[in-house]
């Protein structure tokens, strides 16, 4: 393993976040390796979404030291650094007013890709996500599962170093969930690290290398069942269905 690959993608120490005068997050240390998949579990209101949004740069921590790709930075600088590199997906994804193609092109436009290049990349991604038949459909008219797959495609086309998934399979049927798991496995193979936040963790354990639990804003280790910290991903990327 090269020096670069050995370096963690992101390390956070002493992270604190308060809302309305109440401390909602107090994380002593969090380390995310490259290509790693972490299952983040916890009850509703335990701070999972807040932590993911901080890691995505959408919220700025009150305190904390962030080491991103070897550079140590304060929370505000870290938020600027993480935005666009780390992609956050909502439980119910937001679709911009436009077609599926326009939604997927959004991030590429922000990166200044010309329209010819956009079309090529989008065509490839739609084939990957099996969404080619929906390309010209208004994105807001899709089903929940289709929207989530569009959101994943919209994220993958940007090749994010970290994907932060907030309960994304919560409202899906079994088929959509299976397709989504396959896509996430592909994303990991493409080199993205993934953090899943969920309170229904059983279906996702097979996808993950380690499990962390948030309890009242504090992070605690919660080893995966069977005593193994690392569960290898199946070659075909197909994960086990809900156990």
């Amino acid at each position, binding site marked *: 393993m090269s020096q670069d690959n050995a370096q963690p993608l992101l390390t956070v120490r002493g992270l604190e976040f308060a809302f309305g005068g109440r401390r909602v997050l107090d994380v002593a240390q969090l380390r995310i390796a490259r290509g790693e998949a972490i299952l983040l579990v916890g009850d509703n209101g335990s701070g999972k979404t807040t932590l993911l949004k901080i890691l995505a740069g959408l919220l700025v921590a009150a305190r904390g030291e962030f080491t991103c790709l070897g550079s140590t930075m304060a929370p505000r600088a870290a938020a600027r650094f993480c935005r666009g590199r780390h992609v956050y997906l909502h439980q*119910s994804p937001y679709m911009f007013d436009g077609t599926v193609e326009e939604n997927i092109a959004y991030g590429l436009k922000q990166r200044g890709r010309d329209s010819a290049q956009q079309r090529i990349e989008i065509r490839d991604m739609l084939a990957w996500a099996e969404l080619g038949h929906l390309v010209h459909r208004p994105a807001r008219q899709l089903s929940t599962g289709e929207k989530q797959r569009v959101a994943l495609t919209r994220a993958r086309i940007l090749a994010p170093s970290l994907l932060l998934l907030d309960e994304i399979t919560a409202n899906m049927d079994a088929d959509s969930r299976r397709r989504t798991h396959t896509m996430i496995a592909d994303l990991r193979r493409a080199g993205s690290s993934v953090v899943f936040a969920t309170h229904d963790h059983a279906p996702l354990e097979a996808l993950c290398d380690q499990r962390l639990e948030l309890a009242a804003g504090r992070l605690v280790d919660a080893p995966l069942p069977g005593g193994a910290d690392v569960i290898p991903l199946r070659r075909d990327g197909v994960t086990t269905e809900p156990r």
Partner: protein
Amino acid sequence: MNELTEASHQALQLLASGDGVLWSIIGVSFSVSLRAIAIATPLALLGAFALAYLRFPGRRTLVTTVNTLMAVPAVVVGLTVYLLLSRSGPLGALHLLFTQWAMIIGQVLLCLPLLIAMAHAALQSGDQRAWETALTLGANRWRAMCTVMYEVRFGLLAAVIAAFGRIIAEVGCSMMVGGNILYHTRNIPTAIALETSKGEFAQGIALGIVLLAFALALNFGLGYAQGSGEVSR
């Protein structure tokens, strides 16, 4: 009844004949109000966005103040601008009183609170996830703001139309700071007020028809842009 019919007939003749005075009044009206709305709209959108998306001390007070300012009568705005621009006022050296720019300043002040309040309401009714999604997909804050505004564009367009409707039809402020000077500062509402006071109704009716036609065109335009008006399914 005969008088009204006669005046209406004359009004239509005036409009059709391309009367120079009539069309100069219409020209002044649109020139002043369009410039005012062009200046006020970006300021109001930025202000409304700040109120909706930024957290800073005094934000609630500011929202309440803006809502309160919507109720300020046009003559009070006119009086304030008059005092500011009059020779002995703090901005007297600019010699703007009784010019179109004085009218523009008055109209900007008049429509800003309405524009901010309506744009703020439109942005508030939007979805916070639009802002977060834009940022996480790599948009900078400026582009993310433009995306959020595009997502609520019909509400913002309605705000601009309502604000334009307020200033193109207001008489108090324009009369006070513009002086109602023909070919310079006489606009549709001040002309209607003047002609009516003289008992000359034809020009007033003609100008009223122009205002009404414009209001209808704007609202049809907005309706068309909004689509069927049904709840999205």
